[in-house]
């Protein structure tokens, strides 16, 4: 492979029942990645039932009609690594199996795609509801700053907007869920017309399609659900929020609405995030952490999503430092980017990093972020599994002016500014911040 040919070769066919099947051969290691995406996430939920898509993901590991017990056992027995995850836009499931166990993995994935419901009992449902409540306690409630993104999501969108809540959902909603909700959800979203399957690794392409057809071809197609209506949203002004947490030092979160994944400006905002806060050379790290030592850390990230993204900048104050000064410094750096854009040196560095990271993404066939996961992502969002090379071109084509333009267009003063401060130290918050409740 040469640096000019960075791509993931693939073959895509659609079964008669609407299931997209994508195959990528990579024979270096005797393993096969099985990767299934369902085009459903928390943005398909409604207020009052937030967290449902993720709870449903848990149920997918509890058995299906023809294997009416735990999903892990037969796959562990085959030497598989497996997992699943839910985000706002999609739910994915994957196994990495030795070449000798492809049949078993496909049997298992197809069985839960086609025949899940007979295996979902009240008892299993209630157990997983409690497991998810524990997941929420462990990863959000019992973690410093763990509730910040919930407050931000709620503030950025009207309460009924599909991105107004996080994937984990509210604890009250999770407790209120009913088994009947599971059945409707499965019939609406879990079927061949709303899913895609990638097989990547040590197998022959034609054989892979035969196997896909053998296991998934019999499944009944459903009706492809309509896209979720995500109205255009914007903030009218800067909104300042604050909540107290069990933390030692205050932290500031600044969030802006930004272009959807792959839309104009999305790649540029990735590069802006790099130049602001990736590594010691980045502008904010250098100023705030390295030179002036007023912050402990700073990060920036364009959180790209299907129907609209957000750009998030986070800085943790050094002990004794207030957030007012930190915000002023951040604003000064933002203004310089909006006015002057990146230097040529910054652009070269950012592009070099992007190119290397695209190459690193070609190293693994399975798991989160492996080639199979990427093929499914591009297929779902662009209807083109081969979008990898186009994706890279977005970065190669970015110019100092396009980066400057994107920062000027999106990183303006209509934003959410959240202070998370140690309990009982309300004076550390930014002035004029409205107190929010998180739970």
């Amino acid at each position, binding site marked *: *492979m040469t640096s000019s040919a960075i791509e993931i070769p693939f073959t895509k066919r659609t079964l008669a029942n609407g299931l997209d099947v994508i195959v990528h051969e990579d024979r*270096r*290691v*005797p*393993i096969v990645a099985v990767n299934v995406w369902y085009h459903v996430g928390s943005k398909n939920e409604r207020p009052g039932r937030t967290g449902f898509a993720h709870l449903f993901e848990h149920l997918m590991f509890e058995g299906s*009609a*023809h*294997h009416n017990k*735990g999903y*892990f*056992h*037969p796959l*562990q*027995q*085959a*030497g*598989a*690594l497996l997992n699943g995850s839910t985000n706002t836009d999609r739910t994915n499931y994957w196994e*990495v199996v*030795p*070449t*000798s*166990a492809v049949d078993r993995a496909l*049997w*298992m994935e*197809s069985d839960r795609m086609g025949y899940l419901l007979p295996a979902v009992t009240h008892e299993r449902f209630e*157990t997983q509801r409690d*497991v*998810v409540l*524990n*997941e929420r*306690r*462990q990863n959000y*409630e*019992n973690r*410093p700053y763990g509730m910040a993104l919930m407050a931000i999501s709620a503030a950025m969108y009207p309460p009924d907007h599909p991105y107004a809540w996080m994937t984990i959902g509210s604890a009250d909603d999770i407790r209120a869920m009913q088994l009947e909700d599971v059945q409707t959800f499965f019939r609406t979203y879990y079927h061949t017309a709303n899913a895609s399957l990638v097989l990547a690794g040590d197998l022959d392409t034609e054989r892979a399609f035969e196997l896909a057809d*053998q296991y998934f*071809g019999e499944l009944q197609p459903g009706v492809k659900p309509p896209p979720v209506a995500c109205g255009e949203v914007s903030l009218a002004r800067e909104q300042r929020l604050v909540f107290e947490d*069990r*933390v*030692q*030092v205050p932290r500031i979160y600044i969030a802006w609405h930004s272009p959807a994944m792959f839309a104009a400006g999305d790649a540029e905002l990735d590069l802006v995030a790099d130049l602001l806060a990736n590594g*010691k*050379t980045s502008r904010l790290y*250098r100023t705030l952490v*390295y030179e002036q*030592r007023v912050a*402990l850390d700073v990060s920036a990230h364009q959180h790209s999503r299907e129907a609209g993204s957000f750009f998030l900048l986070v800085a943790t104050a*050094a*002990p004794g430092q207030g957030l007012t000064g930190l915000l002023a410094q951040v604003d000064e750096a933002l203004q310089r980017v909006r006015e002057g854009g990146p230097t040529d040196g910054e652009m*070269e*560095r950012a592009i*070099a990093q992007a190119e*290397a*990271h695209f190459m*690193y993404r*070609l*190293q*693994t*066939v399975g798991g989160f972020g492996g080639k199979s996961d990427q093929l499914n992502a591009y297929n779902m969002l662009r209807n083109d599994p081969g979008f990898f090379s186009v994706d890279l071109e977005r970065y190669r084509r970015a110019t100092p002016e396009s980066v400057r333009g994107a920062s000027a267009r999106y990183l303006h003063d209509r934003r959410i500014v959240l202070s998370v401060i140690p309990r009982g130290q309300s004076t550390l918050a930014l002035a004029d911040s409205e107190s929010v409740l998180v739970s």
Partner: protein
Amino acid sequence: MSADRSRLPEVGPDPAFAFPNIVGHTLPNGLQVRTIEHHGVPVITFVLQVDGGSGADPADKEGLAAVVADMVDEGTGSLSAIDVSDALARIGADYDADVNPDVTTFSLTTLTRFAGRGASLLADMTTKPSVRESDFDRVRQLRLDRLKQLNDLPTAVAERAFLRLMYAQHPYGHLAIGNDLALRSLSIADVAALHAATFRPPQATLIVSGAMSHDDLLAAASIFGEWSDGTRTTEQGPPAAEIEPSDRPALRLAVVPRENAAQSELRIGHLSARRKTPDYPALLVMNALLGGQFVSRVNLRLREEKAYTYGARTGFDWRRGISPFVLSASVHTASTAEAVRDSMAEIADLRDSRPPSDEELTLAKASLTRGYPRNFETAQQVARSVAQLALYGLPDSYFSEFVPKVNAVTREDVTLAAVRYLDPEKLTTLIVGDHTVIADSLATLGLGEPSVLPVEL
């Protein structure tokens, strides 16, 4: 053709697996170099592993080795910290330093076309760090502030307290980050002294893996031949692995109070085995079926049956010397005592009343061996794996022998390992959680009054 849903497809014979050839070289300065070809994607990884991790911290200077590791990317020669960061970015490098109890490991991954630049940069950074006062002061302050933040992170509080409970004042008894008092007392001279004592070619191993021939990999590594073995400024004491922990009676139950905690962070364990023990394959199998995988006694009971937790696991925190066996979980506050009782019962039962069944044994062995080749998909995975050989003094044939050795483990081996390496009477239970809420239920465990520990110790 449609699927036969009446039974699961059988799994075919395991695919053949052979670990790629490891070629060893010794440079004139004494540095061990190992090269492994890994073709497919034009990427190369360098791993430099030096003896002396957090276990080499002098008693009153806990945290020093980690500061030394931090100073490695803070400047070298004419390059400032910013210049180093810039140089790494320009070759798209993925750089990482990891301070282990026995060794410190530096890893740099880049594209093969930058192999020379990557090697030269890593060599300069690790062997000739500038160690400037202002950088040292900033790095230390960031670590002091990080320590403060860790006090609010239940997992970190639990890890730190548990190591102290296991090892007391032994060199393994602290996290790499150390403690506040020790960090404050450090000087730049301490950094220079530990670097001089531990960063020496005869005590280090360089592993290079990537899409190049052995000759080219070795050529890329040759820049490390310029690393001279300077004069040692301080005598190092015996390595941590060779010091026996004191054989004092262990605390049965300890609590670090965390008011209004949403969950209790749980650790249950005791010192158990050394990584190099010949019983290692049996211990792996034993751990897999007890709590080392999703389908294991502990996770099935605590998560899938009782829903006390999002997940529970067991494992060995391996090191060269005696290492802890530990069960970890974050459990709902209201279920804390029940979770402890169930966990201890699972550990005890494996030794006597419920030895492993054939089915459990088969499952554990299959999950350890059948997917084994997936551990070696990237150059970085390969290089880090070979670094483990150097860390634990294992033979180059280790990876090729792994599957047959695990498959040879019998039920008797597992039972014997459980009897030899697990002792319910010696288990220490540590809870980071809301003590006022759980105190009454803890009293029913029969472990006596809990010792109440401070957040920092």
